């Protein structure tokens, strides 16, 4: 009973935050509501016993997306770019309500089929991880994860391609001007070591407990961004070989393991006795690549001539 009440509160907050984020008058307010909405979604995931998802949602869905949106608000404001205000659209609202009703009905009429808990549990030993989510991500459905880590890279290449031709070879993003004794600079020095620790823990824990390359990578990306904003670390040039190597290392490693498996008879197959070591290796490689890709996505294309 208490559980249901708690659920109802979370759902109410979710819907209210979503309405506020979508309908807010100001752009900035909308983004703030959206970040808040992200937090409530993470709570909802905790209620559904999905700690891995909750971590991912908090780190990526609310955190990084929020940062991206906030950054875009800044850019748009600086460019003085506006758009006509939203006009209410009754037919559209009806159609969207119709979609919601359709989906709600589908939710209520789902057949009473169990999920894949049993097959996952049966395959877990020898999959290289005791965390079923990690096993699905890096072993059972490794192909999805491989493609997904490469999607990030594709998008980064696309973002970089938007740089002015003259800026090619420069450092990503605008140059930050930070007061050396300011609050941000202080945080920038203080937080990164802490964040580094959290990030590494998340990756390492991912094989046994909730966590993993994506969540850990996001934290590490945040660390880098913070340090870069504080002026502690400068982003390398886009042509830097080390940077490029870091970006592709994880997927290349993943793909190499997969091809080795293919030579042994199954593409992306992991030998059970080596699986644990391979999973950890891939996780570490992916973390490095994901962290750099995410951080660079937030920084955006290089904008100043090299």
């Amino acid at each position, binding site marked *: 009973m208490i559980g249901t009440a708690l659920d109802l509160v979370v759902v109410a907050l979710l819907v209210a935050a979503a309405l506020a984020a979508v309908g807010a008058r100001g752009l900035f307010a909308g983004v703030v509501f959206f970040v808040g909405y992200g937090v409530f979604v993470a709570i909802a995931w905790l209620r559904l016993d999905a700690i891995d998802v909750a971590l991912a949602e908090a780190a990526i869905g609310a955190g990084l997306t929020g940062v991206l949106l906030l950054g875009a608000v800044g850019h748009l404001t600086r460019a003085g770019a506006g758009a006509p205000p939203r006009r209410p659209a009754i037919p559209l609202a009806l159609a969207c309500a119709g979609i919601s009703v*359709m*989906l709600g*009905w*589908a*939710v209520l*009429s*789902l*057949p009473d*089929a*169990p*999920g*894949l808990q049993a*097959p*996952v549990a049966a*395959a877990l030993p020898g999959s290289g991880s005791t965390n079923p989510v990690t096993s699905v991500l890096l*072993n*059972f*459905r*490794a*192909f*999805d994860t*491989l*493609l*997904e880590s*490469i*999607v990030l*890279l*594709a*998008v980064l*290449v*696309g973002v*970089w*391609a*938007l*740089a*002015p*031709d003259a800026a*090619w*070879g420069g450092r990503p993003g605008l140059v930050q001007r930070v007061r050396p004794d300011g609050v941000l600079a202080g945080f920038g020095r203080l937080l990164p070591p802490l964040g580094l620790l959290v990030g590494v823990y998340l990756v390492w824990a991912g094989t046994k407990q909730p966590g993993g390359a994506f969540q850990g990578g996001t934290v590490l990306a945040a660390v880098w961004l913070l340090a870069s904003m504080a002026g502690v670390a400068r982003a390398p040039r886009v*042509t830097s*070989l080390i940077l*490029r*190597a870091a*970006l*592709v290392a994880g*997927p*290349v490693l993943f*793909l190499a393991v*997969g*091809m080795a*498996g*293919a*030579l042994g*008879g*199954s*593409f*992306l*197959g*992991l030998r059970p006795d080596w699986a644990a070591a391979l999973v950890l290796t891939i996780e570490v490689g992916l973390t490095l690549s994901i962290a750099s890709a995410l951080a660079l996505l937030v920084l955006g294309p290089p904008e100043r001539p090299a």
Partner: protein
Amino acid sequence: MTTLLLSLPVALPLLAALLAVAASRQAAGLAMATGFLVLGLSVWLAFEVAAAGPITIALGGWEAPLGIVLRADGLGAGFLVVSAMVMAVVLVAAQPSFEDQGQESRAGFAFWPLALLLFAGLNTAFLSRDLFNLFVALELLTLSAIALVAIEGKAGSVTAALRYMVFALLGSVLFLLGAALAYAAHATLDIGLLAQVELGWPMAAALALMTMGLAIKTALFPFHAWLPPAHAGAPAPASAMLSALVPKASFVILLRLWFDLAPELASPLLLAVLGGLGAVAVIHGSLLAIGQDRLKLIIAYSTVAQLGYLFLVFPLAGGAGGAQPWSAGAWTAASFHAFAHMLAKAAMFLAAGLFLRAVGHDRLEGLRGLARAMPIACFAFGLSAISLMGLPLSGGFTAKYLLLTSAFASGQWGWGLVLVAGGLLAAIYLFRPLNLMFSKEGAAASLTPVPRWEQVLPLLLALAAVLLGLFSAGPFAFLQIGRPGAAAEGLLP
């Protein structure tokens, strides 16, 4: 061996893309080598499929529903081969524009990985049997395609890319929603397994969502308005990939949904809507192509029309008609049409790119008398036009012939009229550029010379489009391999 044959067409472009990011100096060579390697592998795979029937592998050794299954049947392997042909040629054609000249440039860096990732996404979409995996593959494909649209960096191309982006986001979220509902209802994402279960209301909603999502991604009328500016604004090799290849991925998945997964669920309304929108697309796109004054826009609007033909397969072969004798013809015709369009459209865009380079702009009057300066490229353009119009002996003709036969056999005359009208309209909109190209008087005074080997590239593709018509019996039989309900006999002796 089969494991490698099925996984390498996906793994090789991925690996090459990663290496192209790391070592951009070698990217062009790497990409071209990958194109031909994948082409060779696909042909080999096709021969294996022809000899032994559909080939299936479970990735990581995990069978569905836990794992992801790749399957090469006639349809998948056929698309794999034709798209690899297009890709191999397009990558070679891109080399003069995008190869690094000593110093790494922005576009020179970005083009190769994006093209290769598009290739990988495409091949995955042709082979995968897993709805969520297909979603990720489509995302990889679409995001690379959008980045390629914007690669010129002008305000116009950024606008076109953003418009494309908005449509693509809607399409992919609808597809994802459908896939999620399918899993929630039946605890599997595998098309083969879903085909075996009793499908209820959640699956009906899921199929409606996925169908609309894929239709939007295939730029079906009225969700096509983003396509012409996006395709016409990109550099020629990118246009060729965007117009010839990208829409086919979502279309193949659509075919799999309605012919593999739930053929018996297709309602008359669904078939009528898909076929009707396709028919309108044929007429609308062709009429708009007639009105354009820029060559690349004509070609792009022609894509809108040509994609419309593909959707006629649903009323002609889908639903209850799937058991009829004519359905094999119509079903195969859709693939044939897609093949012919892939080859001819890529050839056309490559040729248009050469014209643009020679003349400096792509307004129609610039084409006057071009056939004397660039006979090979103009000939290639003419050959592709023959296939697009559906004139006899070309791949486009075989496709239209099969569609027409099915339309008549099933008594659905209306679709036949659309086919005939579409062919006539195509002749009209292609007549203007052709007439100018081959006109006797007047020629652009100062043309930038274009090397002959570059003109041969579109010719290769155009010839392939014509050869497809000349030798259509083999491909016809090949496409039947693994076709669901293939028990129904085709129209061939």
